[in-house]
């Protein structure tokens, strides 16, 4: 499968478990936001409006929960010889290429939900804030190995800033 967003490379996909984590994350974040906004609207404006906000929020939550599976399946990353490719997005597709030589540091993070499922997120940091080299939902052991590989490649190919 070679198209604009998946050039020929050894593409790695995320583990299926990450779908569950993403759904839970979306659920937690969206429900809390919906409740807060609905309460605020209810107290300030009117409770009928608050109901409307709650319905919209729930619909948005449901949409995100349903789409999570497809979103995770579109996410892919590929370690090539000299750069890291990351692709994701359903409607707004994007493909980012980050040369290892631009690496400043590699971060591994995992939040409480991630940890419960044994997952972690790896981020390749460059001097640009727009690079956004995040790879979420990796198995913790894979994340550590990936981090070490990225660091090694970055040091071997370091480019001047």
């Amino acid at each position: 499968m070679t198209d604009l967003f998946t050039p020929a490379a050894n593409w790695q996909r995320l583990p299926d478990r990450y779908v569950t984590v993403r759904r839970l994350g979306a659920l937690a974040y969206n429900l809390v936001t919906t409740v807060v906004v609905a309460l605020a609207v209810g107290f300030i404006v009117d409770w009928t409006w608050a109901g409307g906000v709650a319905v919209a929020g729930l619909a948005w939550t449901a949409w995100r929960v349903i789409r999570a599976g497809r979103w995770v399946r579109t996410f892919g990353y590929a370690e090539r010889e000299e750069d890291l490719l990351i692709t994701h997005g359903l409607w707004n597709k994007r493909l980012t290429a980050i040369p290892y030589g631009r690496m400043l540091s590699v971060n591994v993070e995992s939040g409480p939900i991630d940890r419960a499922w044994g997952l972690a997120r790896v981020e390749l940091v460059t001097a640009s804030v727009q690079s956004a080299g995040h790879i979420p939902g990796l198995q913790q052991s894979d994340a550590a190995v990936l981090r070490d590989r990225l660091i090694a490649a970055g040091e071997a190919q370091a480019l001047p800033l």
Partner: protein
Amino acid sequence: MTADPGPVGFLPPEQSPVALPTDVVPRGPAESGAVQPGAVPPGAVPPVAKLTERPHPLTPFIRGWVVLLALVIGIGREFVPNGEGPRPLPPLEWILAAVGVLALGAVAAGYISWRFTRFVIDADELRVDTGAIFRRSIRVAFDKVQSIDVVQPFAARLFGLAELQIDVGSHERSKLRYLSLGRAYALRDYLLARARGYQAEAATSTRSVSVLTDLHETDEVLVQVSPQTLLLAAVTSHEFWGIVLSGLVFVGVGLAIGQWWVLLAAGIPTISGLFGFVSRRVTGQFNYTLSRRAHGLRIARGLTSLTSQSLPSRRIQAAQLSQSPVWRLLGLYRIDIEVIGWGAVTDNEDKSGVSTILLPAGSFAQVQVALAAIWPLADFTTVELSPAPVRARWIHPFSGPFLRWGHDQYLVVSRHGWLVRRWQLVPHARVQSVRVTQGPVSRRLGLADLEFHTAGMHIAAHASGVDAGVVLERQAELMALLHQHAPDVSDPRSSESPGRNGDQAGPDAFRADQAEATISSTE
């Protein structure tokens, strides 16, 4: 101000590389900072005792002067009749006394801060100690110095003093204020030489410092912009017409509803806004000169407050050319650059201090010379630009016909804009990552956008409405260019490591010829 006129340099002038004919170097307390007693006598080659310097002894008075000026203006306003009848004011003696006390307080505070400020700039270290209560000592590694700027605010300028700003690439600059102008320039030259790895000798005062410019006979003037050009450019810029238009809209609305006073209420702020805008543009960039000395590029500018900033070309991430509608007829361009750690682009022409304007207004030839100065290897005029396909107009109805993008070995160039035309130039060597994006509509039309991420935030280089097929075709090439180990675009002609880019002599030589031709035409 009876400072000890002791030796300032660490070498007698005749040994110093910067010092010129020594017989004309006038030296006195006004030119040298106060020097600690026990200084090394001239002639002692390796200084054993640390020679610490203080800023110029007039410094506290200038700070007091600034406060006094602010007070006089603030209180003077109260005396101006404003149509509300006389206001009860305290007796004049009281006011004068209060002003005097405040000004004296400012002088005293300035004195204390001056008393506790010392700096060492010699062969071993660059150190600045400040603070009376909270002592603070900053030591900077010479090779981390990115740029040195000499800034003269108006008050300091009256006394021939200047402020030295040391940029090491962090968010904060160390400032030494105030030094005599000659000393500031000498230290700047020394630090820049050291920053580039030369074991230069600590310099003494440089001679031939003109009041209006920071030019030296050895300097190679690359671009000079006359005040007339600045005035013309300001009056024909789109910002100017924006102010005029907003004023006209107000007036039109006022006439439509038959309220004649709106004419006055809208007219006066518009006219004063226009005056302010034009005078800022002209005074801020007055006598703009881009020149090259042995240790790098430099921009000097300003009428009331003079700024001389050095330009660290390796830290320039991207450049943006822009052209207002009328400028297209006049053939004028402006260049803004993005330098790591320098902050926001544009709208800073009025401030004294560094600005990210590489060229306030200039002809195409001057644009070429200025860009060749920062990126000697690249030549954006030879980059082949391809237009966006006609179907891109569905997403970019106005700018669609003007969208272009292209790249060569060194640069990515993209063009945008309908009224104000903009060219974004990014060297591959500064691109941190590349992204291809495509939204649902673009996908239908077979288009894609490209983003080029640099370490800067303000010039977001991108190419919009590119044919997806072309992107697919050129993807591999673009990504390979990202990590080429070719010579850096900003390597000067006389690179310190010869042989690394010896094969690049061709385009360089060409650029040099062009630069020469343009210089002679601008003079």
